[in-house]
């Protein structure tokens, strides 16, 4: 995936011998009559971090909803680990190892931090192990473990959301707008954790409006515009594409 592409041709950068963890081919999706995804082609190699960037309304969140099974594509193919999964249910995909951290965090505000983490044990993992890992990765959550999730700060809620997603032992982690509403320092800290998670072999597709943090930890990046992937490549290549897209060629 070293070639910067400015069209919506297929982006099969992963070695063909090992199937990529996620492959989207000409995926279309619509809300009623309004078509939001207009033929998305994207590949996430196994163990890689791919940053999916784009302006508000480009279709990034819709794409994550389609990948996680929350929304059915109207056309196209979704492959996970070399198998055709288009139309699979969200719970089947979660069991398969696809976990999403939704935009807005999605924590249960009236449950405590610990109770939110317990929900991760529905994946079948032992709750003690889940808590140990979560508190090791996010010591702040241990301090707040008896506190209602709704009373946490935005950054702490995002930590909790991330920790709960990791409780399911994901192989492919989908992160939607991790930085939304957070201070830059908190965002940097969260992306440091994302980098650590990636080092453990978890494949990550991170959707962001604010590119710099995501590109810092990404192996590859893609840009969405108007419901299509208009460019893919390595982070430094994509930065110039972004400049062109957003500022018409001026840095």
């Amino acid at each position, binding site marked *: 995936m070293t070639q910067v592409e400015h069209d919506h041709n297929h982006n099969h950068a992963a070695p063909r011998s090992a199937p990529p*963890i996620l492959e989207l*081919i000409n995926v279309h999706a619509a809300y009623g009559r309004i078509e939001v995804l207009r033929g998305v082609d994207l590949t996430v190699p*196994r163990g890689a971090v791919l940053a999916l960037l784009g302006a508000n309304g480009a279709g990034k969140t819709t794409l994550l909803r389609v990948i996680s099974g929350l929304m059915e594509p109207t056309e196209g*193919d979704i*492959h*996970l*680990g*070399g*198998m*055709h*999964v*288009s*139309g*699979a*249910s969200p719970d*089947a*995909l979660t*069991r*398969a*190892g*696809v976990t999403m951290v939704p935009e807005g965090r999605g924590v249960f505000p009236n449950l405590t931090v610990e109770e939110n983490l317990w929900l991760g044990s529905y994946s079948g993992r032992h709750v003690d192990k889940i808590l140990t890992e979560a508190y090791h990765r996010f010591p702040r959550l241990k301090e707040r473990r*008896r506190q209602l999730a709704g009373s946490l700060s935005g950054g702490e809620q995002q930590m909790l959301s991330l920790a709960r997603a990791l409780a399911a*032992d994901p*192989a*492919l982690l989908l992160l939607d707008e991790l930085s939304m509403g957070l201070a830059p320092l908190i965002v940097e800290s969260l992306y440091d954790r994302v980098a650590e998670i990636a080092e453990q072999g978890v494949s990550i597709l991170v959707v962001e409006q604010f590119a710099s943090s995501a590109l810092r930890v990404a192996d590859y990046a893609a840009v969405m515009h108007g419901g299509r992937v208009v460019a893919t490549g390595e982070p430094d290549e994509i930065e110039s594409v972004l400049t062109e897209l957003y500022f018409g060629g001026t840095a």
Partner: protein
Amino acid sequence: MKRKMLVLVSVATAATLMWPGPASGETSLGGYTGTATAIPIHVVVIDPVIPLPSDPQVDVGVGFTRSSVDTGPVSRATASYLWPGNVLGDGFGQLVGGDAQYPIQVNSKYPATDAAPAKNLAQLTDGNGMYTDDNDTTTHAKVVGLGIAGPDTNIFSNIGKGLGKLFGNKKDASVSVPVPVEVSRTLAGIVTLQNVVSESTATLGPKTFTTSAHATASDISLLGGLISINGFDMTAKSVSDGKKAVNTGHAEIGGIGIAKNLITLGDGSINLGSAHIKLPALPDLLVNSLKEIGISIQSMQTTHTEDGASGTFAAQGLVITVDTKPLRSALNAPFGILGQIISMLPSNPLTQQLSSLLNLAPKFVITIGDVSTSASASPAFTGGGFPTGPTGGGSNGDGGGSVSGGGVPIGSGSVPPSTPGTQPPASTPQPTQNASLELPGLGKIPRLVILGALALVAAAAWLFRMLGGFLLGAGRNCAYGLSTGVPDLRKG
């Protein structure tokens, strides 16, 4: 890889062939849940000013036992000489922080844990303490006590030295002389009593699930001796065989004394039965006199439901409600009715005992003999469809039976098996079941049949997986020739 699979299949086959089959003592019930609770004396203080996150604000059970069982079995037995209510007793750690546990209790669990071993006890002297034991068939909690006395213990310590010996689950008797547990003046002002026995049991039998509760005590003195009760004995029992639940109970309460003057009702005692048995009326003079000083007495309250295979039963012997406002006024009025009552007390320093008590709360409720049981079970699947026995809408009959020996049986009319775990008596209507549809026990099925069935199931599972994959692919194959289905991405 193939060799590994071959080894795994061989081991699985050998394990299946050598599988010993179910133990003969196992229950035939498919699922079950129930709880038995016994509290000889239950004191509840209702005062919103007290800063505790519970309602009522103070809840004290003297001689509390509870046994609960759920399908598994997963069970817990709890015994506490002085139980501060479930909010504080079970949630002590959350309230005070850390992993602290309310100290005056012993627990047993099945499966056992370090904190709740299969057998547990803490006792002051031999036979005087808290006991629990729990295994896969019986969950049992018991408190036996020589009573609660009211010496001049330090009111600020709140818990007397006798009770203190029960802290920390001390397993050896360190006191050789049997003495009643000493408690604070405040608690002793509310209640003292002797010969407490509280016992709750949940038993999983071959064909029935039974919960039973028993509470008894004697020489009960309430409100610094203002009210005394000779003794009481309460039992409650719920039995479910998976098709029908039956509740029974028994209550016996001795004479009530006001200011040391024993008031006898009935045959030397007050016999309290279930709701449909008319109680002997308390004398108007007594009722009105007590009402004037803010004390009301309600006798024998029972509630029970039998809904198919689920039964619940709760009985309270005497419920004494004390409104402290008129009592406080009466206490301060030298010539009021309480003054007259006090003057009848030969030596009891009632005023002193009650003065600290009355600063406590606007209202407290003392329940003498609080027992409750619940049992619900469902039959195991027999291959013959659902059980054809009576279902739902069970009678709420108040049962009855004859009064004997001063005690009254309460609950539904039919009598459950007297021994936990035994079959219901022949008179109990047995639901009809088509014998030809019954499957033999697992241990009696030839191993090869089991293996054959497992192979069939595996083949069916494979077919369904393929079918599922086809359906997941919205009925079409992948245009790129990939197989359809949901992989386990973690296997890499």
